[in-house]
């Protein structure tokens, strides 16, 4: 609450505030709006110099149709999907287990390992590049989706474990103790007591990792090179050289490439924000 709520301010102040906010929003989103507008224009508009006005005809289907049928875009999208989904599942599964161990058990080295995970979280990925590339080539996984997936899982595990461990630490511990007193096996405690309680964290983490991995460009460039395995972030550059100067198609391609994580964000907004907040504040 800034001093007086805006609702109680004089009418003029309210009006100017209400006018200012949408204006600022439009300015903020102007780059996106422009690209969206470009993407539904016919080619003729660019020839005639109608860049910024309304499209003279709506060519949504033909533009997006060409993106989907005349380029490698669908392949790139599928590649992204097949890289992202297994990574999310793998990273979440591994980190749920590791987080459980670090959060529930007291043992020698617990703190040390926890700090190692924090450190791993901050290591700049550039330093991994050359050895990881060589390792991937040695394992015969260069330019394959598997290679990317394996690496992503490993790299994301640091952050995910940190996240899970903090979440498990905040769970009511007596619940676990009660189960132990009843003689429930440890894996059953993990599976039937802790995992169900972790659902919000699992969802938040999954959404977060999905966008991280989908948007990854660095490793896509380092570990893959062709349409066979490259995800859409790397593919979009190839797409743009294919349609150089065809602004309507370049825009449509950019929108298609950006859409899945944006859609994910709007559908799962609650989890996404919960994930960011949990990950950053803790």
């Amino acid at each position: 609450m800034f001093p007086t709520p805006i609702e109680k301010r004089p009418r003029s102040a309210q009006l100017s505030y209400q006018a200012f906010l949408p204006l600022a929003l439009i300015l903020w989103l102007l780059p996106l709006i422009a690209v969206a507008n470009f993407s539904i224009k016919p080619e003729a508009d660019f020839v005639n110099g109608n860049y910024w006005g309304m499209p003279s005809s709506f060519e949504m289907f033909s533009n997006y149709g060409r993106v989907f049928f005349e380029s490698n875009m669908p392949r790139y999208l599928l590649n992204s999907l097949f890289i992202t989904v297994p990574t999310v599942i793998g990273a979440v599964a591994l980190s749920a287990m590791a987080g459980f161990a670090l959060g529930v058990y007291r043992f020698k080295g617990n703190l040390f390992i926890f700090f190692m995970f924090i450190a791993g979280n901050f290591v700049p990925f550039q330093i991994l590049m050359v050895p990881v590339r060589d390792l991937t080539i040695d394992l015969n996984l260069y330019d394959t989706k598997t290679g990317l997936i394996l690496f992503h899982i490993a790299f994301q595990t640091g952050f995910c474990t940190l996240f899970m461990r903090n979440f498990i630490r905040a769970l009511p511990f007596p619940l676990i103790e009660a189960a132990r007193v009843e003689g429930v096996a440890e894996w059953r405690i993990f599976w039937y007591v802790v995992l169900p309680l972790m659902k919000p964290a699992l969802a938040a983490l999954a959404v977060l990792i999905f966008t991280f991995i989908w948007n990854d460009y660095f490793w896509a460039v380092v570990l893959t090179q062709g349409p066979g395995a490259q995800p859409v972030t790397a593919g979009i550059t190839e797409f743009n050289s294919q349609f150089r100067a065809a602004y309507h198609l370049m825009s449509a391609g950019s929108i298609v490439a950006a859409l899945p994580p944006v859609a994910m964000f709007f559908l799962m907004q609650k989890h996404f924000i919960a994930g960011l907040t949990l990950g950053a504040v803790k």
Partner: protein
Amino acid sequence: MSPILQGLITIIIGVGGCVGYFFASNWVLDKVIFPPRTDDHGRNINRATMVRPWLFLFPAMFALGLYLVYPVVGSFWRSLFNRSGEEFIGLGNYTTMFAEEGFRTAVFNNILWAIFVPAAATFLGLLVAQLTDKLKWGNIAKSLIFMPMAISFVGASLIWKFVYANDPDIGIINAVRDVLGADPIDPLQIPFWNNFFLMVILVWIQTGFAMVILSAALRGIPEETIEAAIIDGANPFQIFFKIKVPQIMGTIVVVWTTITILVLKVFDIVYAMTGGNFDTEILPSYMMDYMFRDDGRATAVAFVIMIIVLPVMVWNIRQARKEMN
């Protein structure tokens, strides 16, 4: 539909593998290695308890070791060798690099990035969080401002290319200049300031992040403190800067450091927008220039980045330790 089927099978194997590993390893531990049936079953239970955490930790630690610990050491080792990797040249890569003009430009630009981007993103985020707080449609506004965060850095760069394009018909900036009667310019070729044009893209993406975290923090401020300040006759700015900001200082610092660390890793924007030309190089993109040509040099740059990040990392671990005590 074969790729989809293939994907599904991979997923099933992956998940099944995880569940199986987890079930089987616990079973083996409890029933085979330390069964609580023999004469010393008390000791066996204790032993099993000692081993169990490592069962849960093993896969994650193995992954982390293979892809994190080994590469850090490996990178440093590689940076001591020449381009082909055959000749040991000690710190040779570092000395040639420090003497180079391009490297110094990259360091200087990187410092600019590390100061400007976190400051601007945190400030704007705080501003938006404050202005949209308690507003009826504030949540919609927040979602929209947050949206760029979901777009990849490359995707955002491509979108911003339309803003900075030097063709006045395409570029928004030049379209505005055209209306005002000014000649078109290429914003990305203006020395020094072009760095800031690139930073704006990252600020555009990260403001949403700062806003979300800070707005949660603002909501957590006890209402009484603000009421008390109002009763004491504090003006809006005093309330904001002297009551609210100090109470969320911890969160502001976290947001600031998180974005700082991110900035030191981002190369996509420079790489996609200018390719490091026109003196816009920063360390990560400088490294990419050498990536496929000279691994020794590339790893040396990577190690410099690592050393710059190190203090922030140590500070974060200290913070975590403090929280625990």
